[in-house]
């Protein structure tokens, strides 16, 4: 029997350094911890990674090498320090992994291919108001399959999964055909078309999660999240976790839950009343010049309802920041945030008002949030849990 201390080492998980990517391998906890730290801080030297993770320099060295071999991290240009030779920053490779994220809504579905940093590399909006519910599902499944097919290697080999986000009231859409639309039927339909693991989540929860993982909230422990879409909904994020609350009772109308906030549905109605083309609300994401006749009033009304909700929430829990996102052009979101901030600060809190921050994820946050689910599951730890910096 040979001395097992001198047994040959195990083969590396990847086919040496030939570039053979082995994304199916399970990343160790420490590897995911290192990637989560890089996600949170943008880029870190190996020494900083060691200090923040508590791992030894040699362990960090081994982990970074393994992640480099799998193209998940890149080494940047060496940065000159105060003394001695320069040291190299490590950051996540945006093209290290990809994911397909789809957000389903009553009138339309956004299908996206997102990269490792949550940036959209491909997007399609599928309008399906006129289609029968069964047809809508088929269209979405076909789009997911097509997104995989048209993605060229090596990106295609780096797609790690499919995420789908669904609105809370999805069950109520198809009361006549209850079997067609719910989390289980959507998952089953997509599973038939692809081999990927499939993740399903509520759409606003997913959008808030995207902000935590990729966006402005990467270093925020606690905040409130408001998403202004077809309806306007709120999530509370405590200690980097999105708290979705208890599910609403099924079959209800949203106005029955009280305190319903002004949403894009109201803008659509207002635009129609001012004889603007209301469908622009759902079709344009760069500018809403045609809606300017309705926008000032809508922004004031929406901001007032958001400020009311923020004030109500503050009676229960004090968070330092409120992130507002919406399916709208960035300049409109800025105006909405400014109006909300003004109302919150001037009219409700003399001091200690929460900071109102526009989201960084963009109008398709619900789809990006869906796409973040497979990436999170594969490459990140539950929460980094370090003090915000």
């Amino acid at each position, binding site marked *: 029997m040979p001395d097992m201390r*001198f047994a040959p080492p195990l*083969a*590396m998980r990847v086919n040496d350094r030939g570039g053979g990517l082995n994304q199916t391998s399970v990343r160790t906890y420490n590897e995911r911890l290192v990637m989560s730290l890089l996600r949170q801080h943008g880029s870190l030297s190996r*020494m900083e990674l060691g200090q923040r993770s508590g791992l030894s320099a040699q362990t960090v060295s081994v982990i970074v*090498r393994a992640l480099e071999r799998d193209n998940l991290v890149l080494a940047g240009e060496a940065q000159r*320090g105060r003394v*001695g*030779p*320069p040291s190299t920053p490590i950051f996540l490779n945006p093209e290290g992994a990809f994911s397909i994220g789809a957000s389903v809504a009553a009138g339309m579905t956004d299908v996206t291919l997102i990269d490792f940093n949550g940036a959209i590399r491909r997007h399609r909006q599928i309008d399906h108001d006129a289609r029968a519910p069964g047809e809508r599902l088929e269209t979405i499944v076909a789009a997911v399959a097509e997104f995989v097919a048209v993605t060229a290697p090596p990106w295609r080999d780096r797609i790690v999964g499919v995420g789908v986000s669904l609105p809370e009231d999805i069950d109520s859409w198809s009361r006549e055909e209850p079997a067609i639309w719910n989390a289980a039927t959507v998952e089953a339909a997509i599973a038939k078309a692809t081999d990927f693991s499939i993740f399903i989540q509520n759409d606003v929860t997913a959008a808030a999660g995207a902000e935590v993982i990729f966006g402005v909230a990467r270093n925020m422990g606690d905040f409130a999240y408001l998403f202004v879409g077809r309806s306007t909904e709120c999530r509370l994020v405590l200690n980097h976790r999105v708290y979705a609350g208890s599910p609403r009772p099924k079959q209800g109308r949203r106005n029955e839950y009280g305190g319903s906030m002004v949403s894009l549905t109201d803008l659509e109605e207002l635009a129609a009343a001012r004889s603007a083309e209301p469908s622009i609300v759902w079709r344009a994401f760069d500018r809403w010049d045609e809606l300017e006749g309705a926008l000032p009033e809508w922004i004031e009304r929406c901001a007032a309802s958001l400020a009311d909700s923020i004030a109500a929430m503050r009676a229960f829990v004090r968070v330092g920041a409120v992130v507002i996102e919406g399916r709208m052009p960035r300049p409109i979101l800025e105006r909405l945030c400014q109006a909300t901030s003004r109302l919150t600060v001037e009219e409700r809190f003399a001091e200690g008002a929460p900071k109102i921050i526009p989201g960084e994820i963009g109008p398709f946050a619900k789809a990006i949030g869906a796409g973040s689910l497979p990436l999170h599951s594969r490459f990140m730890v539950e929460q980094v849990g370090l003090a915000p910096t």
Partner: protein
Amino acid sequence: MRSVLIYGDSNTFGQTTADTPDDRYGPDERWPGVLRVKLGTRWLVIEEGLSGRTTVSDDPIEGADKNGRTYLRPCLTSHKPLDLVIIMLGTNDLKARFNKSASEIAMGVGALVRDTIGMRVGRQQKVPEIMIVSPPPILEDLRGWDAGFDGGRAKSLRLASEYERIADQLEVHFFDAGKVVQPSAVDGFHLDREGHAKLGAAIAEAIADIGWPDEL
């Protein structure tokens, strides 16, 4: 002051490519000297390069002194405490008389790493940082040395990935010198002045990337 010991062979010693046995590049020309300049005054660079040194074998022709394993213990002990030990060996193990595969050469390096870990020559009897450097592959044309290195080129091309496996297994730092330098065409296995300058600069960066807190 931090200290790094470089445990190597003729390419650490600074053996010139000229065919004159005792020729050695100057203290600032050979890569440990280049490294010393790059690292600055906060580092003590200890050069331990011996021409002909193997990983773990007595050399039946050149002598038992070439065995890297037997000299490692007195060497590290006489220079402790050490912050970093760099091991760049394996080229001499390619000689046909040792009849070793690339993975066995890597296992020899692994044995040196294990010995180093066990000796605890770091500060406060801790294990120092350890970096395995895989030597650059030798060239096809060895200018008369070919017989001694029969089959060496093919094996040398596999050293880097075998060394990296060992480094992963033992959780130590790794640097592939073949990524920045190759031997001079003059003899096919020694570095020229430019190679020493490049390697010294690259290793300086690899050392900086480990990260060293200001306080010892």
